């Protein structure tokens, strides 16, 4: 079977689901962050796959590039927040930081 668009999409789908699961179940904030990276990567794969097979030339790659930039920024800020949380709570367990609780 010729490797086509769908193959890549399936990989990205799996990656996405794994990321989602990770975000939902992990307690540690850093783990949550890692899972988020997975989701971002899956999206990037989609972009590039569509760029390659969809005839969008460079547009998809450009988008992926910006996603990478954003990811870098996001991680930087997120880690800073995590460090801050750690200073305040002395742990980084997401489920225990429930100030939003109604």
């Amino acid at each position, binding site marked *: 079977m010729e490797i086509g668009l769908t193959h890549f999409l399936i990989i990205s789908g799996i990656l996405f689901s794994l990321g989602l699961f990770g975000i*939902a179940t992990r307690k540690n904030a850093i783990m949550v962050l890692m899972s988020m990276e*997975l989701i971002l*990567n899956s999206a990037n794969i989609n972009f590039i796959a569509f760029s390659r097979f969809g005839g969008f030339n460079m547009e998809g790659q450009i988008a992926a590039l910006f996603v990478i*930039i954003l990811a870098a920024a996001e991680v930087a*800020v997120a880690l800073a927040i995590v460090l801050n949380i750690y200073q305040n709570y002395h742990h980084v367990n997401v489920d225990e930081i429930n100030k939003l609780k109604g």
Partner: protein
Amino acid sequence: MNTFQIVFYLFALIVIISAMGVVFSRKLMYSAFSLLFTFFGVAGIYALLNADFLAVVQIMIYVGGILVLIIFGVMLTTKITDVDMISGKTGKWVYLGASIVSLSVLTLLLYMFNTVNWNLPGATAIYHDSSLDALGTVLLTKYVLTFLVAAILLLIAFIGAALIARKGN
């Protein structure tokens, strides 16, 4: 099965297995190292998709930057005395719910990928040279403003991160 397919499946396998490692491993360090493999795998897939420059970028930024950052994060937020550096467990109900949701999302996605008729204009011609040239041209002409904005955003994010993470206040 040609070489392309072999390489593809190899990379797909690496990505999926290492991703599972990231998600399911209880030890933080294991997860982090699995993430390293995932990134490599994704970079390979990029290369297969004719996006060689992005593949390099993926390795440089994700592996060289983000991952290092994450590992630092791990080190800084975990007490050294905690030898295990284990991520705490969440409740069973959460596990169950998350599993259901993730699986259903996966099913849904796979169903959609298989059934949707994308109605695309057709595959792009494969570049035999590096895509770097074309990418650079587009980036500095059509998307120059976006590029600049992204650069500024990155700068602001880093300054902001430094500010937030500053000790005390």
